[in-house]
């Protein structure tokens, strides 16, 4: 058994939600506020959203700029941000086991904030049949491949989905020098601003197939196409070497579930009350792990709200 280290607040996840919560808590003098993130860099999903749209209208920022800004603000406020450290499991009601390059550690806190974010459902979880060929992405993987590692992704991509994140994926495909063959959605209309949908269709020439579902992935070794079915039952093959499954977010609730914390059956996120308390006293949840998925700025605002609730837990009147 390793020694148990004591902090005041332990925040799991250094995305916008966790960082905003920690910043406010540290600034309010909540004592030792420690933020853990299993990635090598803090910032969460915005780290790999190379496009703009994260700042304010007056101060536009790209995702990575926004991630750096939030991290710097947390550190300046006095929070300790530790990257490369994974929260593995629970060793008590307010105690977590962790591991990192320095080895295992058990940390106990007066309050714990879960800010572990959300992921997109990959192809398998959507039960899309066909071969297991290469060239199948989620937006999260695609953005990291293109923006963090400059990896080639193929030359012709189909984007599955037509919401904001799908358009971000289409932009990433184009940034990598590949062509978007089509965007495909089983919805009757895209779920983004009309301007964005129009821009993609007219200025970028990306066809949008509505009322259309992906029914099969084709190809041996490398993807050669996707079969789609239209509302009237017709099927077509879209030839492509890359397909991006976008949206269909699922909260990353694994750590919470391991601790027996109650989920909201509708969202599969953590069930919280109006002050972001979970079913476990002293454990709070904030950001996409509660409701996938909100824009980063909304999540950061929620962090401020969570901090207020944590403070009242630490200093009851």
């Amino acid at each position, binding site marked *: 058994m390793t020694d148990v280290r004591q902090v005041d607040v332990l925040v799991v996840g250094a995305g916008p939600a966790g960082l905003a919560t920690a910043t406010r808590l540290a600034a309010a003098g909540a004592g030792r506020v420690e933020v853990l993130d*299993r990635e090598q860099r803090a910032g969460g999903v915005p780290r790999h959203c190379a496009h703009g749209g994260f700042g304010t209208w007056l101060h536009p920022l790209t995702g990575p700029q926004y991630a750096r800004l939030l991290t710097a603000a947390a550190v300046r406020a006095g929070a300790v941000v530790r990257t490369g450290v994974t929260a593995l499991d629970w060793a008590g009601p307010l105690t977590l086991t962790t591991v990192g390059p320095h080895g*295992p550690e058990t940390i106990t806190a007066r309050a714990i904030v879960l800010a572990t974010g959300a992921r997109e459902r990959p192809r398998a979880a959507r*039960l899309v049949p*066909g071969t*297991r060929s290469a060239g199948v992405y*989620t937006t999260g993987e695609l953005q990291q491949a293109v923006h*963090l590692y400059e990896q080639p992704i193929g030359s012709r991509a189909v984007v599955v989905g037509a919401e904001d994140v799908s358009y971000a994926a289409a932009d990433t495909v184009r940034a990598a020098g590949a062509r978007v063959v089509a965007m495909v959605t089983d919805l009757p209309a895209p779920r983004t601003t009309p301007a964005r949908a129009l821009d993609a269709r007219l200025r970028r020439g990306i066809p949008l197939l509505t009322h259309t579902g992906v029914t099969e992935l084709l190809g041996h070794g490398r993807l050669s196409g996707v079969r789609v079915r239209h509302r009237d039952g017709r099927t077509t093959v879209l030839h492509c070497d890359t397909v991006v499954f976008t949206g269909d977010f699922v909260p990353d609730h694994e750590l919470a579930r391991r601790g027996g914390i109650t989920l909201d059956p509708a969202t599969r996120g953590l069930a919280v009350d109006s002050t972001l308390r979970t079913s476990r006293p002293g454990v709070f949840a904030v950001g996409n792990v509660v409701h996938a998925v909100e824009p980063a700025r909304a999540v950061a605002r929620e962090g401020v709200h969570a901090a207020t609730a944590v403070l009242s837990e630490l200093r009851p009147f």
Partner: protein
Amino acid sequence: MTGTYDVAVVGAGVVGSAIARELARYPRLRIALVEAQDDVGQGSSKANTAILHTGFDAVPGSLEARLVREGARLLAAYAAESGIPVEPVGALLVAWDEEQLAALPRLAEKAEANDYHATRLLGPAALYEREPHLGPGALGALHVPGESIICPWTTTLAYATQAVRHGVDLHLDARVEDVSQQDGIHVLTTSAGTLRARWLVNAAGLHADTLDARLGHRDFTVTPRRGQLIVFDKFARTLVNHILLPVPTALGKGVLVAPTVYGNVLLGPTAEDLDDKRATGSTADGLDALRAKGRRILPELLDEEVTAVYAGLRAATEHDDYRIRAHPGQAYVTVGGIRSTGLTASLAIAARVTGLLTEAGLDAGPVRELEPVRMPNLGEAFPRPYQRPELIAADPQYGTLVCHCERVSRGEIRDALASTIPPRTLDGLRRRTRARAGRCQGFYCGAAVRQLFEEARP
């Protein structure tokens, strides 16, 4: 490729790799293991239900029954020595109707005939006590405590690694396209050049009939029988304690629910006779059928996230047994029809084939003990590197997690990339480390893992 090998083994599945390893015990032999694909274990051997069978339900007296029984014993011992994860969870054959219930005593007798004496009949109360999450309506079960789960990837890789470390030449990306004879020597024309060998072993799995025909035999025809499987996320693991086997009836073997050594739960396989030996895709109908059956067996399973879907092809033939034949005049042994038990039987098949070769005149020379191999542990029942403080203290890379869903460290990925048989693709890396095999399928780590893979490429 110059020189003449003593033995060429065609096909580096679990069977061919086991044969090559067995032959490596004879230091005087020069051996080639020739594989069409870019890795060992890329055929049926990578996509099965990963059960180490007892052979309790084999056809008594068949070759398969004997080799499964022997193979299970050999592989259990080999796994313990080599670090291949095995969990002796036991199986329950669950009866859902009167017909199936009536079949259980007959299966118990069959087990006895197969020299397996530990089965026990369970009534519904005892069954539900063992499996509280089982769907309603089960009438009873036959308990087969000896059935285990195993890591199929590590098994094939361990054989091949040990073979290569003892001098076997592994030729990957070398599809045997033709075989001819010159002065009593087999000349193999492969996609990577010509190769000569005095003795030939055909362990080509689904393609064993094609290769057999090239040597003039029409002994069997392989009909690929597809099995689709659904892998459920780790949270499903607590729902099931045993391998839940269907009771075989006239309508076929049915669908099982089984834990995996990686801590997931499998649902499958389907059984579809096909013509196309490349048809390893999944289908909407297949997945729907599996989910319907799974809902009956373990209703809560369907609420969990699906991690992966895959399909494997069984090398079924018109015969009801393995087709292992020696053709001494041709210095040739065929290993055909290793359908649905080949993982379990692999070491016994290898011993049998070696016996046939020497009986047919192969002068193997002296025999030696092989240096044991110690494979990286991919199983949840044994400590993984991230759980080993002493390892992390010695090398912090084992504490740096890259694949978060499966908790794979940078150190393990580095080791796999520098191993005796390094992976040539990301899928190969996945089978060696579990990296990208989890619920997010690369959302978080996919690009980072690819980066490590590309950096290590020559």
